[in-house]
């Protein structure tokens, strides 16, 4: 058995692989936060059909949705520095790789979340906006205080799904030289010839993380409902 599958090796290397998890988490966190901000802004642009910006937003979304993620990553990582150099910017070498990774992930998440929030806003009853206007609110107040909070409640489960696929998407960053769990498993496997055990470890860690995010998602949903119930006098 040990010849085919080395359980001791799997257990022994688990903490080593796990010690690289922070890269994936950091990318997911940054992309999640920036993506939600981008997504909200783009959704509002599209819903209110703000002339030129609306066109740009539509192009942005169809580009992100229409191209493979790896292509986007390479475009930014290999393409952007070239372009900047040709434009005369010399400090390319000082920009850390993670910077490009953050940009691509944030733009990627932003495009998907924009569509989610857009349909969530459309799902909010039209009467809510009218009521906000009727008491004298302007558009910014109405959206930030009434419409967006309700849209987010509607969108939470779907946004969590996006966060989960973003997390899984971080397994591609080794392609641009970021050392994450995948890269570590790759390096160790090259020496030990025990790639199976190493990648099982990677899989276990991803499963655990996805499980945690799902739990957090249901917790937030429950808390919203629970909050309402608790206040029921």
């Amino acid at each position, binding site marked *: 058995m040990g010849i085919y599958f080395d359980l001791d090796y799997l257990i022994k290397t688990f903490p080593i692989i796990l010690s690289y998890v922070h890269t994936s988490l950091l990318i997911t966190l940054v992309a999640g936060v920036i993506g939600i901000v981008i997504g909200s802004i783009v959704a509002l642009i599209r819903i209110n059909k703000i002339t030129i910006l609306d066109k740009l937003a539509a192009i942005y979304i169809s580009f992100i949705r229409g191209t493979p993620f790896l292509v986007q990553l390479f475009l930014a990582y290999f393409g952007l520095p070239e372009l900047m150099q040709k434009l005369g910017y010399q400090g390319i070498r000082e920009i850390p790789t993670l910077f490009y990774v953050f940009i691509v992930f944030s733009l990627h998440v932003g495009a998907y979340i924009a569509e989610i929030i857009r349909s969530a806003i459309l799902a909010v009853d039209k009467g*809510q906006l009218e*009521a906000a*206007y009727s008491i004298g609110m*302007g558009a910014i*107040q109405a959206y930030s205080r*009434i419409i967006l909070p309700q849209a987010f409640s509607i969108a939470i489960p779907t946004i969590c799904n996006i966060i989960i696929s973003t997390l899984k998407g971080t397994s591609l960053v080794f392609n641009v030289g970021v050392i994450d769990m995948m890269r570590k498993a790759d390096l160790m496997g090259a020496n030990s010839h025990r790639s199976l055990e190493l990648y099982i470890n990677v899989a276990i860690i991803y499963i655990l993380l996805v499980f945690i995010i799902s739990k957090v998602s249901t917790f937030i949903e429950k808390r919203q409902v629970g909050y*309402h119930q608790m*206040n029921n*006098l």
Partner: protein
Amino acid sequence: MIEFRNIHKAFGENKVLKGINCTIPTGSVTVIVGPSGSGKTTLLRSVNFLERADSGEIILDDIHLDVEKATKADIHKIRQRTAMVFQTYNLFKNKTALENIMEGLAIVRKVPKAAAKEKALHFLEKVGLGHKAAAYPHELSGGQQQRIGIARALALNPDVILFDEPTSALDPELVGEVLEVMKKVTQEVNCTLVVVTHEIAFAREVADHVIFMDGGVIVEQGPPQEILNHPKEDRTKQFLSRYISLVEYNI
């Protein structure tokens, strides 16, 4: 005072308002009645520009607007002076009863939070729902939601409150409590109230002025005993006979 001058509005080919002219005096209770599709809601919503009329003038005391030329600032100004009670209540679903009333005070009128809260509670008591301050709309009955909707409008102390069929989405057994609150409002408050309703008995009791609309025009208007008891126009007679017999039939 609200004055409509030659208000026209079409949705595509469908001409919904065909030259509305009328004056609603300050502090009056004006009830608008008329068959479904006659343009009552559209007229009411044209006052606070939830629906923008195609042409005509709307005058609210010192605000004099040509609807075609009204700017964002004009619209904002008119909305600051009016409030609306909706058929489907439209309470903010993410806010408690108290917060629904506070919102306009604290956020729009910039009343300090403590004062806004106190005032909101006062109006919540007024509609008999002080004990529901912390409840969310989905935890309240339709009648309770509509009473909060009325409190939300009252708290802003507007010049005009526009009511669009405030009881017609309610279960019959809840209509009474809302009408009670509305009667109280008509007695206590001195702002101008414009009420679209099918409650003829209510109109008879509280209205100073009744407007009968049909097919996008005002067919006749006047004091309630005149319009509701001795209408001159055939269309009004027809509408009322159908309506009143229907009510009697239900009883």
